[in-house]
């Protein structure tokens, strides 16, 4: 469990954010949202709505995609994150699990986990061990496969590794980009349990999902992103009952889909 943060109870604040790619393509317009300390916020939306772009803006990887923040702010507690590099976010305690898992396929499970701690320089071995114990407690299956190449794990195991890798940086806020993507329903259920557990341990979560059923069952609060702008916002329970969300994201037969 991370110690009490020095700056009180930091929250992620995204304020009227505009993002464009290649100086022309507008991806986000005036997007604002807040993830309170220890909270779980879901961000829903279709493909291309700008969900991943928002996470890139928080993590500082827009530049790798020729994107830039043209207006607005991103703050985590007292730390300004817009215009900074990814290291700044990691050091501030904001760590992202990217879409599609993106584990280092040629490296072993153990090396992947060690890579997760690379952003924090000069950490005591005891802290690293503690972080690793936490990951293995959450994902006992990874503990059995430490010397296996990550590329040989199943999709679900890779998602576990991707989350475990991020936890190695001892985040206070975890950004999850479509953790249920491409996983079997049972594995989606398992991942949802893990996210709930991570949250119970005191880590805030910003959950980006197309699987609205799963996301709304986990979140306190949710936003729907529609072509670069926040459409709907509200408590997750309320949002799940609105017609628009039911029709667009939960589908007519989605009651059983991933909703725990």
């Amino acid at each position, binding site marked *: 469990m991370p110690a009490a943060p020095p700056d009180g109870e930091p929250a992620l604040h995204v304020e009227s954010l505009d993002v464009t790619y290649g100086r022309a393509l507008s991806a986000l317009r005036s997007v604002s949202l807040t993830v309170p300390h220890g909270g779980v916020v879901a961000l829903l939306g279709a493909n291309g709505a700008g969900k991943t772009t928002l996470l890139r803006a928080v*993590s500082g*990887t827009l530049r790798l995609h020729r994107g830039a923040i043209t207006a607005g702010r991103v703050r985590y507690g007292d730390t300004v994150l817009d215009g900074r590099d*990814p290291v700044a976010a*990691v*050091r501030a305690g904001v760590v992202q699990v990217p879409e599609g898992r993106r584990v280092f396929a*040629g*490296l072993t499970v153990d*090396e992947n986990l060690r890579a997760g701690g*690379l952003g924090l320089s000069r950490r005591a071995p005891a802290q690293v061990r503690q972080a690793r114990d936490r990951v293995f407690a959450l994902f006992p299956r990874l503990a059995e496969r430490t010397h296996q190449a990550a*590329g040989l794990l199943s999709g679900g195991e890779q998602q576990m590794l991707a989350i475990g890798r991020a936890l190695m940086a001892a985040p206070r806020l975890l950004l999850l980009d479509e953790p249920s993507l491409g996983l079997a329903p049972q594995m989606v259920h398992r991942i949802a349990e893990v996210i709930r557990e991570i949250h119970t341990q005191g880590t805030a979560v910003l959950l980006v999902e197309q699987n609205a059923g799963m996301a709304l069952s986990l979140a306190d609060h949710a936003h729907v992103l529609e072509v670069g702008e926040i459409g709907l916002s509200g408590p997750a329970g309320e949002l799940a009952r609105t017609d628009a969300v039911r029709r667009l994201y939960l589908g007519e037969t989605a009651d059983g889909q991933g909703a725990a």
Partner: protein
Amino acid sequence: MTGLLDNLLNGVALGSVYALIALGFVTIFKASGVLSFAHGSLLLLGGYLVAVLHDDLGFAGALALAVVVTALVAGALDRLVLQRVGTDSHAAHVQTIVTIGIDIILVTDLARRIGGDLLTLGDPWGDSVTDLGPVTVADSRIAAIVVSAVAIAGAFALFRFTPWGLSLRAAAEDAEAAALMGVRLTRVRAIAWCLAGGLAALAAVFLVAFPAPGLERTTGQIALKAFPAAILGGMASPVGALVGSMLIGLTEALVAGYQSDLHVLGEGFGDVAPYAVMVLVLLVRPTGLFAARGAARV
């Protein structure tokens, strides 16, 4: 029989020097996706520094300083020049072309300084030889093998056991994911260039040692022979670079050793042999001997 042993030993010595250069190519390629055509000029710079410094500093001091300076020059070239040329996915291609420009500038300046001279590096081996059972070996070759082995082992230890090595391997797999873990890509690749520069300077000393006549302005071109070594090893694999270098070194030594029996191929086939081997290997294994592991599962 003695002839064969001689040739094999020469091949290993040559191969270990190529390995120093090829390992640099591979490290740079892994870290930045850039094919460094500036490597020959860095090698020449390293050799030149030893040549002009050894009178004052002694050989060991001159070599140490040359390695450090060449490493810093390589790192600075990457950080201050190459990394400013684009940051998107096509940047590596542009940067590769820029290395050609850097090479031309550096080689031109060094050639102007060296002129038509043959510079000696003041190495302690001179032209002395050692009898090893049936064969007689130049001390410079024994030194080349020993020093290369130590340097290469050191480089592999860096890859395997240091945070930098882990950062390099992670970034080579997925640069964006590594960045999200807080890996500073700019620093990781600048250090990769430093390592490659230092290895090139070290290689220079053995390339121009006995029985080679000394450092001349064209010495840097020898670095090009390590290119086929790196490519046939798979370009991104340090182990592949080692195997490729040995293959190239042995081929060259054997072809040169049996030149008289191979006269159908014409004089000087030894210079062509590395490329012939590369083409043959690539015909059989188009991605090289040790291409990226096919472990990835979708």
